[in-house]
């Protein structure tokens, strides 16, 4: 849903400059909304390395379980298809 917000002249000028820079790089119009998304997503992933709290044994177990679930789903799906024929 689209929202209308009020921002200061200073912030408007700042985000407009970013939108202008992106517009130059992309060669197409860039909206303020897209410029805000760019700023929002420009936080780096780097600091999240190792952020999960999970012993190795547990990590291995949940990873295998996920693969097994997909495999089970496929097996089930194919069995149903076979039955329909």
């Amino acid at each position, binding site marked *: 849903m689209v929202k209308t917000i009020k921002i200061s002249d200073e912030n408007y000028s700042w985000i407009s400059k970013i939108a202008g820079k*992106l517009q130059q*790089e*992309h060669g197409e119009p860039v909206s303020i909304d897209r410029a805000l998304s*760019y700023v*929002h*997503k420009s*936080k*780096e*992933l*780097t600091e*999240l*390395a*190792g*952020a*999960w*709290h*999970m012993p*190795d044994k*547990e*990590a291995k177990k*949940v*990873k295998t*379980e*996920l693969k097994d679930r*997909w*495999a089970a*789903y*496929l097996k089930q*799906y194919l069995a149903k298809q076979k039955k329909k024929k």
Partner: protein
Amino acid sequence: MKQDKICIDTDMLQDYLLNKKKAVETIAEIEKTADCATTALSVFELFCIAEQTEKPDENIKVVEDLIERMTILQFTSASCKQAAKLFTELQKLSKKPEIRDILVGVLIKQQNYIIATSDKERYKLVPGLKIYK
């Protein structure tokens, strides 16, 4: 703005969050030049993994923080249509495709992204999909 478009798969993101050296190095390298994305399905898988751990609240929060920093590729009717076509063709050829891998691979290819994965073998059935070294 970064020029490359790289989509990181669940397994690599999981290894990254677990501080596995190879994944940490690869993602640090990718981040220098690329717009980092992942798929909506990987988001689902990461939440599933986090839910099953002994500290679900903390791990779910980490996933939320991670996806805020990434572009999330959404499935479209066009990507699903293409994936279904490929899945059916591969099935007829008895190639045993995995539904998940075909859905993800076709979406990434269609959005002109390169996939970064710890398991390159699983995407070999998606023709034309570019895989990060």
